[in-house]
C-alpha cells in the first residue's frame, strides 16, 4: 500500500490504486448517508436504542464500533485467501469477538464510569449485524485497504446516528449535553419540564424514524429504496 495520492486517474483499475481514489472515498463515504447502516440498511438498531440516552456513552460506543468494524474488516481481508470457506463464519466471529473483548477490557481499565453505563452493550457489538454484515459482504472479497475504509465508514455511519439520537434524547430528556446544563434555569422556572419519554428506549425509535423521514425527503437517491 504505497502513498501516491496525487494524480493517477482513479477510475483505472491499475495495480497500484491511489490511497484515496474516488472509489475508495466512496467506500468510506457511502455508509455515512446513501447507504447508512442504521437508517438505510436498518442494521444495529438494538444498541442504537439502548446507548443513546446520553451523548458521552454514545460517543464512546461509536468509537468502539468504529474500531471493531475497521479492524475486523482489515484483518479478515488480510486473511481472506487463507480462511477455509467452511469455517469462515467462525473465523470471522473469533476475530470480532477478540476485538470486542479488547475494547471492553480497555474501557474497564481507562473509562470505568462509561463502561458501567454501556454495560453489556459493548459485549453485544459482537452481535451487531453491521460488523458481520460488512465482513461477509465486503471484506471477504476486497483488498485490505478498501476493507479498512469500508469498516471505518460503516462504523462512522453508525456513530453519526448514535450521536444525533443521543443529542436529541439528552437535550430533551435531561436538559443537558455531555453533562452540561443547556436548557437555562428560567425555562424550568416558567414551567418547562424535561420529557420523561426521551429517557426511555422507545424515544430512540421515534428519533431514528424522524431521521429516516428527513433523510429520505432530502436525499433523492433514497426515494425508491424500500
Amino acid at each position, binding site marked *: 500500500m504505497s502513498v501516491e495520492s496525487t494524480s493517477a486517474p482513479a477510475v483505472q483499475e491499475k495495480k497500484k490504486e491511489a490511497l484515496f481514489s474516488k472509489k475508495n472515498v466512496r467506500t468510506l463515504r457511502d455508509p455515512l448517508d446513501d447507504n447508512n447502516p442504521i437508517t438505510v440498511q436498518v442494521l444495529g438498531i438494538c444498541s442504537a436504542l439502548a446507548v443513546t*440516552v446520553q451523548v458521552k456513552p454514545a460517543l464512546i460506543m461509536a468509537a468502539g464500533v468504529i474500531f471493531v468494524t475497521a479492524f475486523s474488516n482489515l484483518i479478515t481481508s488480510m486473511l481472506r485467501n*487463507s*480462511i*477455509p*470457506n*467452511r*469455517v469462515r463464519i*467462525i*473465523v470471522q466471529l*473469533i*476475530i470480532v*469477538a*477478540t476485538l470486542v*473483548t*479488547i475494547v471492553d*477490557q*480497555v474501557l*474497564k*481499565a*481507562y473509562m*470505568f464510569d462509561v463502561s*458501567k453505563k454501556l*454495560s*453489556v452493550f459493548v459485549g453485544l457489538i459482537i452481535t451487531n449485524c453491521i460488523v458481520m454484515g460488512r465482513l461477509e459482504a465486503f471484506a471477504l472479497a476486497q483488498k485490505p485497504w478498501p476493507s479498512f475504509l469500508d469498516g471505518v465508514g460503516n462504523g462512522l455511519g453508525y456513530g453519526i446516528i448514535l450521536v444525533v439520537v443521543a443529542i436529541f434524547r439528552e437535550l430533551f430528556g435531561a436538559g443537558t449535553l455531555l453533562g452540561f446544563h443547556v436548557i437555562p434555569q428560567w425555562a424550568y422556572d416558567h414551567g418547562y419540564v424535561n420529557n*420523561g419519554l426521551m*429517557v*426511555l*428506549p422507545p424515544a430512540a425509535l421515534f428519533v431514528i424514524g424522524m431521521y429516516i423521514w428527513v433523510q429520505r425527503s432530502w436525499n433523492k437517491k433514497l426515494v425508491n429504496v424500500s
Partner: protein
Amino acid sequence: MHSNSYTLLYAAAISVVTAIILAVTSEGLKPLQEANVALDTKKNILRSVRIASEDRATIEQTYNANVQELVVNSAGEVLSDVSAKSIRLKDQVNKAPEARQMPLYVYTGEAGKKYYVVPVYGVGLWGPIWGYLALEDDFNTVYGSFFDHKGETPGLGAEIAEKPFQEQFQGKKIMSDQDKFVSVRVVKKADKFTLGDEHRVDGISGGTITSRGVDAMLRNCIEPYLSYFETVKSSTGAVMPESK
C-alpha cells in the same frame, strides 16, 4: 477447497493466537481494572454517607482518613482476622445468618459522630442489585443510602440507582417503637401498610419486582448486624462518647 486437516489446523491456530492476545490484554490491564473497582466501592460507600465526589484523590483521601473497615458476625463479635476486602458479599448473603461474615464500614464524620454503613446485596428483576445503607449512631435512623444494579430496566427498576429514590431513605427508622427490627420497607402506594411512615419508602411504579428486591435485600442483610449494634450500644452506655 481446503482439506480437512488444513481447516482443523487453521481453526486451532487462530484460536491459540487470539487466546494469547486476549490473555496478554487481560493480564496487562488487570491492575488498572481492579483499582477502578476498589475506587468505585469506596465512592459508593461515601455516597451513602452523603459525600459525593468524582475526584479520585478526594475519594481515596476521605475514605482512608474516615472509614474503618470491620468484619462482624451475627453473634456481635468482631472478626479481627478477616479483612473486609476479602469478603464477597454475594457468597455471604445466601448463607444462614449465623454463618455469615459481614463487612461493616464505620465512617467518622465531623465532631467524631459515627455512621455505620451496612453493605447490602440481593436480586432484582434481571440480575443482582446491591448498595449501602448508612445508619446514624442510634443504630435506628437511616442517614443515607446508595443502590446500584447490574441490569435493571432503565426508567423502571433502574431508578433505584437514582437520587430521588435513594433520598427517600434519609431519616427513616429501621426499629419499631417496641425496639423490634422492622427494616425500612419499600412498598407500593396501594399496598396495605400498618407500620408508620417512618418505615416506608415508595416503590417504583413499573419496577415492582426490583422494588421488592430492594425490600427483601434490606431485611435479609441488615438484621444479622443487630447483635453487633447492641454490643456497641451497651459498651458505650447508649450515649455517644466513645474513645478519648
